[in-house]
């Protein structure tokens, strides 16, 4: 059985080329990879990464559990992150973590985590994930949230928990794109709202060919 992106309804309205990644059907491109990559260079793109692994650790000894997954996780401050090419561990509060990882890695990761010391929830299916890339992405964000996302204040690697278009979200910032996690049932609304305000600054939907999954903050 296929795992479906929460943007499946949007895919129906575009000439999307679907890629199958770890059992997910996800947009590889929206019909024209070249145009999407051009937009990534010159304006802005919105990419569906809903298929990435998302695991939350909360209460108990969440930092010890996170440390086992990636060394140094227990040392980072709340609202910051640690990452390698395959995963990013976001520390949301003193005792809450969110692990983002390459699609398909979550099963092995769940086996590694001792669920007796912390509450572990696989949120891969319950959370949507959209990625904003391109030099004009700040112009989309400034029309979308009242949160201060100035780049010298919210630097690469930072984590913000707030709202975009009234939708609760967790934002993880890298140098070249912003990753927005949010409840799956609101993904299509969030996509519509971002595209609506982004239309004036050249925002186009793009696929994972344009921004492949990668978590390092320097990406």
């Amino acid at each position, binding site marked *: *059985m*296929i*795992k*479906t992106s*929460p943007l*499946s*309804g949007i895919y*129906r309205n575009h000439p999307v080329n679907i890629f199958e990644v770890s059992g*997910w059907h996800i947009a590889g491109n929206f019909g024209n990879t070249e145009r999407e990559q051009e937009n990534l260079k010159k304006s802005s793109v919105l990419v569906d990464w809903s298929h990435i692994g998302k695991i939350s650790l909360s*209460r*108990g000894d969440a930092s010890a559990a996170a440390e086992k997954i990636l060394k140094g996780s227990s040392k980072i401050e709340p609202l910051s992150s640690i990452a390698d090419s395959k995963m990013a561990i976001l520390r949301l509060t003193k005792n809450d973590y969110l692990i983002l990882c390459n699609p398909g890695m979550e099963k092995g990761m769940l086996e590694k985590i001792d*669920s007796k010391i912390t*509450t572990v*929830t*696989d*949120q*891969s*299916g*319950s*959370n949507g994930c959209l990625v904003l890339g391109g030099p004009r992405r700040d112009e989309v964000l*400034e*029309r979308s*949230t*009242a*949160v*201060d996302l*100035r780049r*010298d*204040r919210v630097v690469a690697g930072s984590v913000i928990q707030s709202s975009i*278009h*009234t*939708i609760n979200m967790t934002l993880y910032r890298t140098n070249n794109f912003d990753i927005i996690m949010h*409840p*799956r*049932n*609101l993904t*299509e*609304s*969030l996509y*519509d*709202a971002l595209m*609506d*305000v982004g239309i*004036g600054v050249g925002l186009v939907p793009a696929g994972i060919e344009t921004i492949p999954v990668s978590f390092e903050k320097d990406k």
Partner: protein
Amino acid sequence: MKNRIDTHQYCELPDLGKELSFKFNGKRIQAYTTDTITSALIASGRTLLSRSFKYHRPRGAYDIYGQGHESLVTANHEPNLLADRILVQNGMSVKSQNAWPSLEFDIGEINDTIVPMLPNGFYYKMFHKPKWMWPIAEKQIRKAAGLGRIDTEDRNAERRYEKRYRFPDVCIVGAGPSGLAATLAAVQEGKHVLLLDDNSVLGGHSIHSIAQVDNCENLNLNGLPEYQAIQKLIDELTEFSNLEVLVNSNVFGLYEDNLIAAQCGHDLFKIRADSVILAPGATDRHLVFENNDRPGIMTARGVERLIMRHAVLPGENVVVVTTHDGGFHTALLMHGAGAKIIAVVDGREDGNNEGVFEKKIRELAIPVYKGLTAHVANGRKRIESVEVGPLSGGNSIKSFDCDLLIMAVGFKPQINLLSMGNKPPKWDAERQILRVSELPSGVFSAGEVHGSAGFAHLYAEGFQSGKDAALTKISPGKVYTVKTERTAEEIITALPADIESGGTHHFICKCMDVTRTEAQASIDEGYDQVESLKRYSSMGMGPCQGKACHEAVARLAAQDTGLSKLDAVVTTVRPPFTGATFGLLAGRAPHLSPIRRTPLHHCHIDLGVKFLDAGQWKRPDSYTAPQIEAGFIRNGLGMIDVSTLGKIEISGPEAIKFLHFLLPGKYAKFELGRTRYSIMIGEDGILFEDGTISHIENGIYYLTTTTGNQDAINSLFQWWLLVEDFDVQVRNLSLTNAAVNVTGTTARDFLQKLVDIDMSNEDFPYMHCRKTKIADVPVSFYRIGFTGELGYEIHFPAEYGESMWNYLLAEGEEFDLKPFGVETQRILRLEKGHLLPGTDTDALSSPYETGVGFAIKDDKDDFVGKAFLKHFKERGIENKLVPYQLETDAPIPDDGVAVLDNGKIAGRVTSSRLSPTLKRGIGLAWVRNDLSETGSHFFIRLANGEDVQATVLDHAAYDPEGERLKS
């Protein structure tokens, strides 16, 4: 373009851009891309721009800055736009407002004769008796005294209103010499600076000044004329990447914690700055004298703007009325552009105050008259002559023919934003202006808003404020005193607020057509406090919101209500400082109410669903008709999306203890694989939720909640986990899992073929749960009976939602599996007598009276709500929720209608439907306890006033023994 000039004796003229054309009242007007609507109209030879609000007097361009009502037009269907600010676009359609049948011949002008004959504030007093007259009169008064009209045909026009956010270290309002110097200081300190200006170009008044810059601390600027110096300063700023500039941005509000609201086009900027510098400058003072509203009377800076920015000469025979050297500067610019200066009338007496430009004017042998000012303007659609006389009024002593009267009688600081920092403006007798000299910590100010001064002085003041804003530590709650100084030479003495030269057309407030005579009559009627005087006469309450007239209003109100002539009484200054449309404030509404979609949403669309709004959720209401769909389940097999249910997993060593505390049931003997009906009650003992709880894995419990309560219950659980030290793990799986309910007589047969567990009634009985797989996807089954038929709730990972739904539909084809919606489910549950918390209960519903007391085990230790439940139990049953049925063919009542007994209200219906199975009306109703016995009768009042009789049922209209769901 009649009034366009191509050379000037004393300055370079600007590049006007490309030629274009637009329409004004249907007539084609030639213009350039740098033109505003006003400059283009004046260039084309037009003087008349609009009609006044009440008297429909002819009005022309005044300050070319958009502070008055004169320039209000409808452009491209959008009303009440300021022609002074709007840049022309090729093909644009512009219309004047408040004139009929035409701007040139306006029948409403008769008001100028009639209205003064009516009693003061006549619309408060007349046409109220007989009563029927007022609606007719009001309509006509509003029609005659209107602004622009909303174009209803334009309602579907694509107009985007965005809300945008900025978070600078320093936000500077005003890009004149002070604002730009402040910007330079702040960016040099490495701060992120946002500079806002309401003009389309930076520089403030200096871009229209040919005065030479001397003694400026920025040595690069000395020796240059101001318009070149300011451009050099602007060029200096362009190298800083930490500076953002927003032009054409009207700052209309300053709120707590340095929140600034600014309009830029159709975008509303909400700016939260660490520090704010207000350098809004000053505009020419409004002088009150007879016929001071005539077209052809313009402010000095307005005229300078027309010449130096638009290369437009607004008049040929010019009289300048002034009280400072700036008036002579304007006269010189007009002279250099080719106008004839008939006279310069200077309110100052002869003495040692001759400035640079006065000397030049005298060298040109232009007549200068000292100690006089304007008394009366003559002419109607355009000024034809001006009479001048002593400052104290009385008789005029000279008259000059002219087509342009330039007013340069000092400056009124733009204090509005400063005053929004909460300190009211006060009359500064020394500087002869209204001033705000105290600001909250974090707000700084500099420039002409504290009195006029030379370029070098303004630069130094601005630069210091920029440094202060960048370096001063903000202390919330503290007050900052503005430290500015003005030399005696810089101070411009104010003329009397009204030149009392006779006549009855001394306009204090031109927006609202309020004259001095009218204001005095209002005071005579008892409105002798400034606030009440303003409200009664409405002066200062027009489109400009007092920007043009606030000083005149304050000074004359003080004078006429008996305070000192030297004093001024100011009314409270509030945002918005400039007009803001509702569209701008509202923004884009669709973003404020996002839609929640289940993982199966698009499968429902594929099946032609009709959606139901359940809070933010879109749920399937029905696919065909609910009455038909109910038959699928009673006689076959149906499937409904129940993914919106709340789903919470509880585990850990103290899971049972936690459940005992939060739920009123007992769980010590809760066997693995069992499912139970469960209710939740608040600490006040009120029933607010019901659902099921299942022991799904060893030590793991799975609770389902209603759609509406899923977030609230999860929050409640998390809250109790913070308060009480339970060793449990609570996982909210509401979005992690999708769910469907497969129900109907053949449900077992259908599902058995998909799973490898034994689905028989013996092995998997009613109110039990199982974990298994369907097509290799892990699923959990809960055998419950909300619809009254054999049924299984199937929960599975949300990401498989669409695949699973389509798979089940395909596999169920041989069993004629049909989708059904929420409305169908509501009918089915009502046939079974199941309640819906929130629909059939309210904030006063005791669980005992609701009929779910069986789920409460109050013989256990303390649990949430126990104390109040004891009280409810002792009080006994007063009202009861009962199922009922109607006679066959009786009409179906609406939800919520009254229950009657002997003609008196005895309760209310909570749910009412036609039962397709029983072919009669059924429902649930709260009734008095004495009416709740099975077989009792009561009446239900229909919407049409008729009553229908209802009979109380035991507990279900359909399958009362539950044989079908247990089968």
